[in-house]
């Protein structure tokens, strides 16, 4: 064995040694500065109207909600989106196309979407499949407003959502973590449910890039990954859409992915959760509620279904 090889090994080990610390520094560095600078963004005008969908829990801090995100198009670390999305992801011009099994397909600009219906503020609990939750005041309106305008055909049974797939704006697309573009899907009745929100803002401001700006949708009774970010297309279909996470690990991520404390995930028991920014280091975890606390409103959608099988 040559001395070079030994030196190489030392180098590799030294690199690994700093791995531990390397993990912490970027997560901390990004969280305060960039979160704060974005706060300068102007408030939505007119401000979103108060709605009846307000959770009484304390909303998560803006600085946590905008710096701790899963948005793999910008990297797999939760500190990546705030570092790479703002500025790089051009939020205007942006179009969202509604097509597929509809009578009137149409492409909307973001400004069109802002005009389409009155923006409401809805404070939803947001539960990540990784076992943590936030409470976020979104601004938007029921997705049903947009879908009805397209005049869905009787044959439309599902809705497929597609996220932007632009390697220039999204450095994370170079990784093979998922099959791009990111796709998600809902059953038609889920998409038309009044709780399903076409989302254009949060905390009274336009939706930041790292949170899925300029437009996303939010389904509060499902795990967070179902609520696709930065969407460019909504397509009505007859067959169940192929969803990115389901495609990558079908036994772990079901099509429905309703928040369900009694169905465990391979890596995370879903029985409990940690509330971001609120629970101290040694605080007990909180019990996770069926359908993320929205059971009363959505239970009937799944009547007669075995939710253990259709997870």
């Amino acid at each position, binding site marked *: *064995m040559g*001395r070079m*090889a*030994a030196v*190489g*090994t*030392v180098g*590799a*080990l030294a690199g*690994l*040694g700093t*791995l*531990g*610390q390397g*993990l*912490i520094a970027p*997560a*901390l560095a990004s*969280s305060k500065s960039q979160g704060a600078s974005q706060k300068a963004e102007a408030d939505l005008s007119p401000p979103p109207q108060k709605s009846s969908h307000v959770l009484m829990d304390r909303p998560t801090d803006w600085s*946590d909600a905008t*710096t*701790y995100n899963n948005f*793999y198009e910008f990297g*797999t670390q*939760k*500190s990546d989106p705030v570092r790479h999305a703002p500025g790089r992801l051009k939020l205007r011009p942006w179009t969202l196309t509604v097509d597929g099994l509809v009578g009137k397909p149409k492409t909307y600009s973001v400004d069109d979407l802002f005009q389409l219906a009155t923006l409401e503020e809805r404070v939803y609990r947001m539960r990540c499949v*990784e*076992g*943590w939750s936030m409470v976020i005041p979104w601004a938007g309106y029921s997705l049903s407003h947009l879908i009805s305008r397209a005049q869905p055909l009787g044959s439309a049974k599902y809705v497929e959502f597609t996220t932007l797939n632009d390697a220039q704006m999204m450095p994370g697309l170079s*990784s093979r*973590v*998922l099959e791009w573009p990111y796709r998600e899907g809902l059953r038609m009745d889920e998409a038309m449910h009044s709780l399903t929100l076409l989302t254009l803002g949060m905390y009274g401001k336009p939706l930041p890039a790292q949170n899925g700006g300029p437009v996303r949708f939010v389904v509060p009774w499902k795990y967070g990954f179902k609520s696709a970010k930065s969407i460019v297309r909504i397509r009505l279909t007859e067959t169940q859409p192929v969803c990115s996470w389901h495609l*990558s*690990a079908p036994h*772990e991520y079901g099509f429905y992915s309703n928040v369900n404390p009694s169905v*465990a995930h*391979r*890596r*995370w*028991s879903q029985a409990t959760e*940690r509330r*971001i*920014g609120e629970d101290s*280091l*040694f605080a*007990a*975890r909180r019990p996770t509620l069926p359908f993320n606390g929205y059971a009363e409103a959505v239970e009937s959608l799944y009547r007669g279904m075995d939710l253990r099988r259709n997870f």
Partner: protein
Amino acid sequence: MRQALRDRLFAATLWCWAAGPLVDWSIRLATVGLGTNPQELLLRAMGQWIIALLMVILSLPLLEQFFGLGLLRLRRMLGLWCFSYAALHLLAFAQFEHDLLLAAFMRDLFTRPFVTMGTLSFLALLALALTSNRWSQLKLGQNWKRLHWMVWPAAWLGLIHYALHKAGKNDFEAPAMAALILCLIWLLSRQARKKRLARH
């Protein structure tokens, strides 16, 4: 005399290096905090540090052959640090994920492969830590060496544990890199041993 002083200084430096992350986390925790999800950050940082330490420990014989700094005498100290971090990692997992409920942890142990692998790796390290004293060395004789070869399976189990955890994100880059380094250390050590034997 000067040699002894230098050895001590070297040992102390290495001790501080191994203790570094623990001090680092504690200071951050007490001052700026540990970010948005401190529990997650701590668990992951600990896990990565344990794997890094295991790799250093496994490459000590190799490094000793080339640099001859008396590194092998420091193996026990680094090994005990590694075990301490592993114990802390396990305890933190039990606290953060299960509020220290044994039943919840046991359920995980038998249903989640990544918990099973991590626990097995920890048990191997526990056995090594318990027999790391001179008394055990004398008592076990030749078997002591055989027993302490278990640091290899401990490292591989730890890596499988890491990879299984990363499977949640379909992101195998870091575990694959670590596996590659581990293979390299193993290959080089084997070659070095062969050479050594050939010389005798």
